[in-house]
């Protein structure tokens, strides 16, 4: 492996480096931080955020944004809550919540893909619409007395793995497979990188955007219900602020707002970073308000660093290309020397 290649790998995975460094610092201050139990706690804390961040990552890769995910999570949770209280059937309740998520995603997708409205405006609008609806339906109250079958999901273990973590792992694996090993994944990158070129390549740009928004809505609903199961109660503000945290995760993961690029490992790194930072600050006893300030500042620093990281990657690729050309011509020259005649 050449120096350039190492540089590229290091620069690309800088978030992981920062993550490890941060974990070691927290661990040095408080050894309890590095325990297995705390690791598991962190994963459980970020599972729902991760399930929302993954589809949001795809949305950003398409050159779009979805600010309505948190509100969809809240509203689905409320709808699922009423369906659970009414039917006492876990499956009916969750299907109702998911159906709402799909519907909300489809509305976003239709307006963005087919009517070509600006994604920021559309999803900002629906952030308010669904938040309002969640409060309107619940009257601002928290719903309790949910069926035990539902709340048990919040503490359910598959073997020794908590259900939330298992769902997160499946979601990460699926996202990775879709992005790297399916035509659809590459088409999403193509749509984000060059809309018109994608259209000319026969990619169904509108359908692609629509589907990504639908899946985003569905997964937001899932995350809202998972949080409610964990809390054993449905609050109309359960998804508050998740849209921004998910964007922070995605941007920390090195996915540019311009669209067309992104790696799932980046999203995972961003997710772990946010999880570790929050958990570490709690263990250190930092106030919640200060935590919010620190998470925000981290994002700005990360994006600023990303600029210089991109520059490092670019120059490494270039010096590598130059070397290859030199080797090429050197090879050609030595061939000339040995070839007879001429």
């Amino acid at each position, binding site marked *: 492996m050449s120096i350039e290649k190492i540089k590229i790998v290091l620069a690309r995975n800088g978030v992981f480096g920062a993550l490890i460094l941060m974990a070691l610092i927290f661990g040095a201050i408080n050894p309890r931080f590095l325990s297995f139990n705390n690791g598991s706690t962190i994963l459980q804390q970020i599972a729902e955020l991760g399930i929302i961040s993954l589809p949001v990552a795809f949305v950003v890769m398409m050159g779009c944004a979805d600010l309505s995910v948190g509100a969809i999570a809240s509203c689905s949770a409320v709808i699922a809550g009423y369906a659970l209280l009414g039917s006492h059937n876990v499956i009916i309740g969750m299907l109702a919540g998911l159906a709402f998520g799909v519907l909300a995603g489809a509305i976003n997708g239709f307006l963005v893909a087919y009517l070509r409205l600006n994604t920021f405006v559309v999803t900002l609008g629906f952030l308010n619409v669904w938040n309002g609806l969640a409060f309107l339906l619940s009257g601002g109250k928290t719903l309790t007395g949910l069926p035990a079958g539902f709340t048990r999901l919040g503490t359910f273990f598959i073997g020794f793995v908590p259900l939330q973590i298992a769902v997160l792992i499946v979601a990460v694996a699926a996202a990775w497979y879709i992005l790297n*090993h399916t035509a659809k994944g590459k088409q999403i990158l193509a749509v984000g*990188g060059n809309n018109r070129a994608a259209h000319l390549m026969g990619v169904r740009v509108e359908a692609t955007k629509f589907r990504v928004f639908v899946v985003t809505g569905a997964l937001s609903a899932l995350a809202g219900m998972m949080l409610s199961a964990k809390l054993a109660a449905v609050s109309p503000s359960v998804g508050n602020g998740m849209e921004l945290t998910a964007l922070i995760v995605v941007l920390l993961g090195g996915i540019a707002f311009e669209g067309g690029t992104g790696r799932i490992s980046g999203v995972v790194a961003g997710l772990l970073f946010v999880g570790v930072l929050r958990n570490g600050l709690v263990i250190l006893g930092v106030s919640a308000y200060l935590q919010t300030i620190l998470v925000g500042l981290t994002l700005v620093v990360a994006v600023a660093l990303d600029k210089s990281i991109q520059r490092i990657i670019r120059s490494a690729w270039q010096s590598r290309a130059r070397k290859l050309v030199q080797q090429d011509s050197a090879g050609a020259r030595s061939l000339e020397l040995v070839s007879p005649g001429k």
Partner: protein
Amino acid sequence: MIGAAPAMDPALPAGAPALERVHFQDMTVDFGATRAVDNFSLAMLPGEIVGLLGHNGAGKSTVLNVATGAVAPTGGSFAVDGVEVPRGSSPRAFAELGVTVVHQEPALAKNLSVFDNLELGRSRKGGRDARRHTARAVLSKVGAGIDLDRPVSTLSLGQRQLVDLARGVMEGEIKVLLLDEPTAALGAQETAALHGLIREFAAAGTAVIYVSHRLPDILDVCTRIVVMSGGRQIIDRPAAGITARDLAQALAPGISKPELTDTSKDKTAIELPFGSSRIQARTGEVVGLFGMASGEQFSLLEDLYGVGRPMTGVLLDGEAYQPAKPLDALRRGIHYVPADRERDGLLPTVSAKMNVLLPWLSHMGAGWWVGGAGKGMYSGSRNELNVHGPTGEEPIAEFSGGNRQKHLLARWMFPKRPRLLLLAQPTQGVDFGAKVDIVRALRRLAAEGTTALVASAESDEIASMCDRSYVIYKDRLRELRGQKVSDENLLESLLSLAAGNEPDPTTVPFKDSDRKQLP
């Protein structure tokens, strides 16, 4: 007949530099290892209108860019009214000396009003009313009676060019006016108006350099003709007495013709109505569609690919074909390589390999294609077009311009062989070696049964790769076959079509004896 040696204008008295409005002296421009302009010298008197001609890559735009300060020359000097402009001066310094350029697509802030655009980047003097008065006077000077408050986005292209010109007038006296393909997208009336304006400026002492592909426009307005090829001046003489035929011949030297395939016995692959006649191509034939810059031939390809106007009466292998979207075309094996490949084709953020394979992934099935089939397909395509550079895993941006172009051509030529390949200016903006590679790859595909339609505004491009060509002007059509598809014939046909003295092509019967003799 015109001589091939650079000749000074006989009207220019020797040893009288003070009279010269513009003087390029021994100008040389290198881009890396490429010499774009080689020892270019041009002295112009006030009032001269020089038509600058040449094929793509001949160095015309570079000469213009030197004169505006956008490109710093490697050697030589540039002087306006005997004042030498120091090398490396900013475009601003050139503008202050009285150099104004009007581009084919004017660089204006479209969202702002005409008035705002005229004032943009200038220090404001005086009250608003006085400034508006000046602006109105300037606009009327360039013959544009445009409302000052109109947003530039609502203006026609011709009007925008006039606003661009008015910006130059705002600067003070225009001593040197540079026009880069000013009429490429203008109608006849707008062209005539622009030419009238150019003559007025020249009469007032402005030296004009007029770059264009449109030979009739050059002959209409220019007083002196300079032809460039490979960065050198090959002709410099007064325009009087030059015919379009002379110009066509002067531009002629191109790539020698490759061996062509005999397709006279093959069946018709595609047939489409055009004007009052039809355009057709046989299986395995490479057919040119030659016309003006941004002419009808390019829209035809878009229509055929389902991204233009709806079409009727198209027969693909004898069956009716009506594309509504690119997928319809792709399903029938029709692939389209757009003219602006970087804008309409490049996926800047994904790897070189994915740039080639992306449209075909869904045919390869979801799964682990990255490893086996995909890799082979990519390296196969690369070999066919002789691509150089880093490995396919690296970002496409790391490849040189010519190799990026090759990737985008490879995408539509090799992973899946097209039945009908639609190419718009396939060798535009690539160097000679890449041109040869592209022509060779296209001829190989044709030999294997791909039919190709090549749309271009470059006669040498059509001549270098086509078995047969249609010359298109508006809704008029003329056909050239076999060895008759040459640079001169194409240009001459286009000129006579544009002049309107062309017999209805439907009356020309299809004779197989017209087909060239094959070895």
